[in-house]
């Protein structure tokens, strides 16, 4: 007979207020196999754990159940408790009587009855727990960083500085990301390029970092410590080795296309570098707009290239490389304003998004840093900044706060007023959020030093009025309707997840939240890890962030990756599938449903009625198996079982929970 202990946690009042702890403890004591049941205020505390440990020894428990919070919270804690008391850590089961019971039910009688049922199921499962042992799996000492913005660059540098090889994959022709588009940065107003460019150069020249620009990750297989990624290096049509970046080709190129980097405010050539400080400083041919590729005419760039670097025949290159860890730093997009017609965006050239305004402010931008109205190249006198365009907007935009807009708008006000001290800035806002070091001070400067008029309320409509723009709004503090004659209107457009984030999530086997931002393993305690082991998150791909936050998360992700990469071997989760060869028929349906190619066939020999026979059976590679259990269902006789969740265990749980 098993000797099971049950430990019921009050979780202070969290459980005890809704669940009758004494009744639950008494009921648990009568369950089959239970020899001891006790309770304590905080089971996860030092004292709580030592109570468990002493009960294990005193009552000779050979396994136990903790009825407490979610196993996702403290299962690992109590497994350690078991190990410390000399029990195999897999002889522990958790009954979740907090998140799944006390917190969601109000009636104490019902919650108590349900808690007892949940414990009964956990006891039934625990009775069938077996000792499990982790196996060791080797680690590939190389990291893959996806996304070459400031987050990706920082993560790559940190990992490389720790001595590990890093491959940095960037989809566009240059690393740098959104930060490269910015003029100044808040709250210090240092020049974005001045602080970013050295980092880009450092990444490019770091002996441990390999840059794959104009490249995409197509496929990721494997598992923590042993990922295998397929990377497509798109054909640049320019030889990276030969090109000197002299620029003759793009000077001569006759095709003009809107520049993505300049937010379509300027034109670039079909052969181009996105911006002057691009890394690598090697152009690419945008084959969709190149005359050679669309009409098989031209070829000027090839003719004029002094280095002979232009190569129209270059093909995509597909690489397969192994990695121990992956950092995802794919950044963000800006919300599409199609649904916000009232602002006349797209209809009037003087209505801009903040990012477009940023480009206009930038000395290397389309206007060379001269801030003029796009419509007539005249200096603006009145500029209206509208906050929360698409942010905090459940109906048309995103319900969340984009977090950086309040600060960059203050920055925009200051930069604008620096250029035109006589002009007036108006800012329509819902709330001003300045939580951050020196943020409030920065905002106050915009108001006090630069005299920006902050108007709490919404700007309902922007429409052209002669050669001006008329902004209609409400000042909700005074209740007055406002009409402001503006020369330019700047929309603080919401940040959103990359439109293809769900596809990348699928590729990596990680999850996204409601808004397609990648989900962290725990919002507080594991903010830089994805749910899938070995994959880490940095920057705005996980949610709106400013530069310092992105950089610190990137360093955090890098630190986590370094912890992983610096191990020779990992201990694998022993909750993997196993095959009972005597039951296995060898139909191999399990192979078909395994997402990790963790099952293979093998031939065994056995004696049946004196005859030696060979037959095929399935075999599980414990290093590859991730414990999903899909194979167990595909196996009709139940020859494949998932350790920790065996058919017998789940069946016992069902029987017990239905009582």
């Amino acid at each position, binding site marked *: 007979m098993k000797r099971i202990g049950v430990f019921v946690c009050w979780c202070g009042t969290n459980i005890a207020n809704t669940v009758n702890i004494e009744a639950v403890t008494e009921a648990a004591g009568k369950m089959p196999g239970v020899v001891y049941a006790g309770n304590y205020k905080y089971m996860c505390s030092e004292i709580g754990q030592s109570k468990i440990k002493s009960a294990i020894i005193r009552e000779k428990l050979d396994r136990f159940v903790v009825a407490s919070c979610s196993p996702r919270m403290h299962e690992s804690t109590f497994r350690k408790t078991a190990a410390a008391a000399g029990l195999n850590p897999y002889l522990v089961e958790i009954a979740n009587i907090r998140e799944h019971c006390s917190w969601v039910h109000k009636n104490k009688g019902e919650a108590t009855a349900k808690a007892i049922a949940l414990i009964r199921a956990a006891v039934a499962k625990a009775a069938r727990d077996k000792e499990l042992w982790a196996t060791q799996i080797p680690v590939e000492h190389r990291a893959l960083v996806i996304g070459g913005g400031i987050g990706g660059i920082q993560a790559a540098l940190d990992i490389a500085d720790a001595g590990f090889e890093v491959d940095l994959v960037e989809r566009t022709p240059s690393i740098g990301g959104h930060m490269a588009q910015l003029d100044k940065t808040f709250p210090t107003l240092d020049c974005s390029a001045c602080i970013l460019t050295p980092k880009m150069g450092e990444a490019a020249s770091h002996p441990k970092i390999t840059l794959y620009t104009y490249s995409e990750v197509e496929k990721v297989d494997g598992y923590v410590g042993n990922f295998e990624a397929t990377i497509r290096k798109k054909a640049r049509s320019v030889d990276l080795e030969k090109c000197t970046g002299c620029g003759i080709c793009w000077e001569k190129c006759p095709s003009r296309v809107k520049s993505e980097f300049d937010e379509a405010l300027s034109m670039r050539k079909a052969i181009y570098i996105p911006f002057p400080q691009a890394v690598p400083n090697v152009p690419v041919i945008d084959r969709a707009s190149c005359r050679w590729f669309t009409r098989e005419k031209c070829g000027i760039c090839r003719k004029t290239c002094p280095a002979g670097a232009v190569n129209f025949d270059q093909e995509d290159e597909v690489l397969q490389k192994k990695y121990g860890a992956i950092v995802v730093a794919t950044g963000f997009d800006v919300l599409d304003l199609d649904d916000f017609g009232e602002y006349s965006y797209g209809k009037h050239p003087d209505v801009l998004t903040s990012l477009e305004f940023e480009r206009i402010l930038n000395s290397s931008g389309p206007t060379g840093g001269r801030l003029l109205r796009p419509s007539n190249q005249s200096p603006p006198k009145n500029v209206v900044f509208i906050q929360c365009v698409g942010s905090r907007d459940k109906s048309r935009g995103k319900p969340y706060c984009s977090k950086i807009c309040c600060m960059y708008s203050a920055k925009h006000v200051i930069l604008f007023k620096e250029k035109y001290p006589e002009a007036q800035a108006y800012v329509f806002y819902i709330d001003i959020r300045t939580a951050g070091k020196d943020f409030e001070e920065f905002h106050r400067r915009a108001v006090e030093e630069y005299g920006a008029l902050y108007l709490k309320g919404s700007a309902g409509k922007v429409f052209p009025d002669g050669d001006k723009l008329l902004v209609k709004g409400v000042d909700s503090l005074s209740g007055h309707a406002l009409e402001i004659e503006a020369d330019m209107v700047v929309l603080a457009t919401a940040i959103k997840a990359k439109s293809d984030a769900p596809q990348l999530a699928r590729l990596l086997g990680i999850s996204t939240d409601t808004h397609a931002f990648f989900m962290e393993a725990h919002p507080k305690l594991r903010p830089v890890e994805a749910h899938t082991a070995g994959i880490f998150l940095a920057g705005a791909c996980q949610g709106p962030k400013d530069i310092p936050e992105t950089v610190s998360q990137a360093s955090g992700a890098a630190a986590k990756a370094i912890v992983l990469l610096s191990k020779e071997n990992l201990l694998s989760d022993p909750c993997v599938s196993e095959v009972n060869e005597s*039951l296995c028929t060898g*139909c191999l349906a399990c192979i078909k449903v395994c997402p990790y190619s963790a099952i293979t066939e093998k031939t065994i020999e056995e004696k049946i009625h004196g*005859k030696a026979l060979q037959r095929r059976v399935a075999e599980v590679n414990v290093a590859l198996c991730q414990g999903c259990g899909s194979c167990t269902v595909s196996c*009709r006789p139940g020859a494949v079982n998932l350790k920790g969740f065996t058919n017998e265990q789940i069946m016992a749980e069902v029987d017990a929970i239905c009582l």
Partner: protein
Amino acid sequence: MKQLSERIKEAAFGSLSSGQVEMVIGWQKGPLWWQSFPAFITDPGETASLIWDPFSVSNLNKYLLNEVPKKKIALFLKGCDALGFNQLLRDGRVEREKVLLFGIPCDGLVDPARVEATGLSKGLLQVKKEREELVFYYKEGQRKAPARDFYYSKCLSCRYPNPVTCDEMLGEAVPCQPLERFANVSKLEAASLEERFTYWSRHFSRCIRCFACRNVCPACSCRECIFDIAEPRWLGKAKESGETLFYHITRAYHVAGRCVDCGECARICPLGIPLAELNRKFIKDINELYGEYDAGADLDKEAPLLTFKSDDPDVSA
């Protein structure tokens, strides 16, 4: 049919006497007119006892699971049997190189119950097929009737009368003119929930759990069946409606996407439970939801439950 009978004997004799195979599995005749049963012959001298008649309905290929040949085993496959053979092959239960397959085009076999229902069985000594007709032999003489009137309903809806696989075909291909096989399923689908429940409970209440439906099925080839495993015991042995339902749901579910629709389960059921309709419900749904799939015939397609598409229909909540 007589000609086919001769060719079967010749094929059996030839393959055994040449040493190509060590055993031939065919059919022999019992003392009563409707008794034709599987025969296992190792001596070439005994091959003359093999027959082919309108009652050679037994599927022979599942016997391959019990035999461990050093060389090869020869056996005869009708259209439905060939599908079953392919399913066994796909499940890794037979080795293709260990069998010699003789194909038998078959346009249908006779259901003794239909003969009995017409009263023709009284004093009946033998039934033979001559072209499209059956000849009934009695002490006093003989009578004739159109053969198709006596065929098993599963034969009337057969879509693969000619074997899709074999090493040698022993006859001319027969025309395929199947009746709609989902007629009964559709009829049931159109009935109300309670009518369906009553219908199936009535049928299932007769089940004696003899497991004949499972044992005869070419898609049920597990070394040990989930229903027989004692630890954990999924299927209890009590005569409980819940247990019986569990058995029938699980049996049909385990062959979903694998059932070759040979109809043997229903034919063999001593209590007349229309088991094939359960399998056909799955086939019909699979065809509708995931595209046409004929287990045992569509060898280039993945079994529907072992694959997916990202835009598969959702489970309606």
